[in-house]
């Protein structure tokens, strides 16, 4: 049923210094999946996303989005960076950050207008942050900041979403709120790719999974490949999670 390939990664190799942190990654992500990328700290999960999005330049390999180079398909792709990647003391408000999601479609020089503001407010509403729209971003809690980032990506109205640890530091309620939004996106036919650390919740939240540790260990439907064998291969130690079938 799922035959269209949303994201295709070919022979991707990435290095910061001399030693590659990603080796020969081949990956096909079908359209409409909610996929987790799992792997230990330093496995290269963030690096993989950044390379797909053209933030980092790979040594070798290529990435295509719906069969075309990423550069031609930018408008189809949204990104939620790891929360710690920005300075939250920056003088701006929650609404302003969410508006940034519209900058891409605006292009150079043009300013966001009423239409963009409306879209931003809708996104804030969706993540339950409307009451905080005029808050200075440094005065938001970690979970609220995370939701602002999510809203900024929602505003982009993309087909494919890449999220780097959107559940980092959020409480149980927010986690459920976020996963519901992600599931809604999937229902709308979007493809969502999430770096995820909590292995216990993988089977519950996701339908697709990629194991990564410098090399790609495995990728496929959660029900087929989320097993102790792959976990052990990825995390090194004899890893066991109690997976309730």
């Amino acid at each position, binding site marked *: 049923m799922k035959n269209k390939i949303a994201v295709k990664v070919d022979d991707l190799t990435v290095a910061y210094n001399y030693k590659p942190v990603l080796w020969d990654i081949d990956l096909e992500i079908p359209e409409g999946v909610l996929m987790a990328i799992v792997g230990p700290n330093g496995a290269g999960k963030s690096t993989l996303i950044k390379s797909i999005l053209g933030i980092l330049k790979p040594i070798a390999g290529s990435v295509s989005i719906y069969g075309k180079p990423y550069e031609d398909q930018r408008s189809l792709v949204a990104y939620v960076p790891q929360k710690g990647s920005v300075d939250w003391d920056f*003088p701006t408000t929650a609404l302003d950050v969410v508006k940034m999601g519209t900058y891409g479609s605006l292009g150079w020089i043009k300013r966001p207008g009423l239409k963009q503001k409306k879209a931003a407010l809708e996104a804030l509403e969706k993540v339950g942050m409307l009451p905080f729209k005029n*808050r*200075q971003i440094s005065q938001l809690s970690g979970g609220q900041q995370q939701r602002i980032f999510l809203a900024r990506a929602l505003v982009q109205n993309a087909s494919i979403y890449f999220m780097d640890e959107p559940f980092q530091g959020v409480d149980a309620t927010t986690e459920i709120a976020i996963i519901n939004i992600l599931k809604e996106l999937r229902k709308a036919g979007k493809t969502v790719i999430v770096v995820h650390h909590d292995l216990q919740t993988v089977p519950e939240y996701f339908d697709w999974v990629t194991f990564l540790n410098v090399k790609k260990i495995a990728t496929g439907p959660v029900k087929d490949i989320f097993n102790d064998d792959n976990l052990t291969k990825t995390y090194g130690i004899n890893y066991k999670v109690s997976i309730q079938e």
Partner: protein
Amino acid sequence: MGTAILGAITGMLGSFAVLRKQSLLGDAISHAALPGIAIAFLITGAKDSNTLLLGALVSGLIGTFWIRGIITKTHLKSDTALGLILSLFFGFGMLLLTYIQKQPNANQAGLDKYLFGQAATLVERDVWLMAIVTGICLLVLLLFWKEFKILLFDADYTKTLGFNTKTIDILITSFIVLAIVLGLQTVGVVLMSAMLLAPAAAARQWTNSLGVMVILAAIFGAFSGVFGTAISATQNNLSTGPVIVIVASIFVLLSFVFSPSRGLLFKQIRFIKNRRDLELHKTLAFMYNIAETHEDITHPHAIKILNNFQGFTKGTLQKLVHKNYVKLDGNMWYMTEEGFKTASNLYNQQTTGDNE
């Protein structure tokens, strides 16, 4: 006049340097400009400021792009790269200056003003130049406001939206270099970076909006320029640069102490006030719990009971009486309707959290 314009432009651009946490950048650029001045003098023999500033601009830009190169090509930290270029260029510049001073024919009187600045040597043409550059800078700032803002906040994300971050970055940096070079004659190489950073740092204390911050920084910078020049003019031979920078630093100091949201003074006052309020609320809540045990909420209780409650003082009781939440009757107290309502509201507030 010239120094006011100068202060305004360095203040505006300084905001960007501060927010990028590139405090050293200003230092590096201004020091990198020194050899340019010396070389321009050696080649042309001219003391005409435009020629010398052109030299400064060229070597400032070379220094800046070396720094960028070092940061992207090697894995040195940006601070290290900045420091490296700074000392390298400044050392070379000083060497040249010393050499020039030893030349018998060289009338070098014009050159040392670039170390500490001398506003009195500004001529009308210099001021015009500054005004024009400031105008262009303002225009560019307005046009690319959105791009500057998003790059400063989240560079990686900006890239994914399809903006060429390198172009935006080069645009900002070039204007910072330009502003610094323009300031050399007035403020001098050594203190130029303070002129860039001080107004911006002061402005940051007063506002949480980027736009307001840039405007405030421009105003602070302009004032520092005017006052600094005025003060240094009263004294013969007093270099302008240090005086301007001292005025700007006073702005910073005042801002750090007095700003309402981030200042130390108000933080302290708020802290004390919050603690007092909290004590009051806690006592009220405790009384509420006791009063609740009775059907009649205004039923009197002994003051002694309250002594069991940590944090209770006569002062807080007085305040509650004063606010009409509690009434005293001998050594008994009872809660008023109003107090009861307030106390139960406290509970609700705590459970729903604050929503602005």
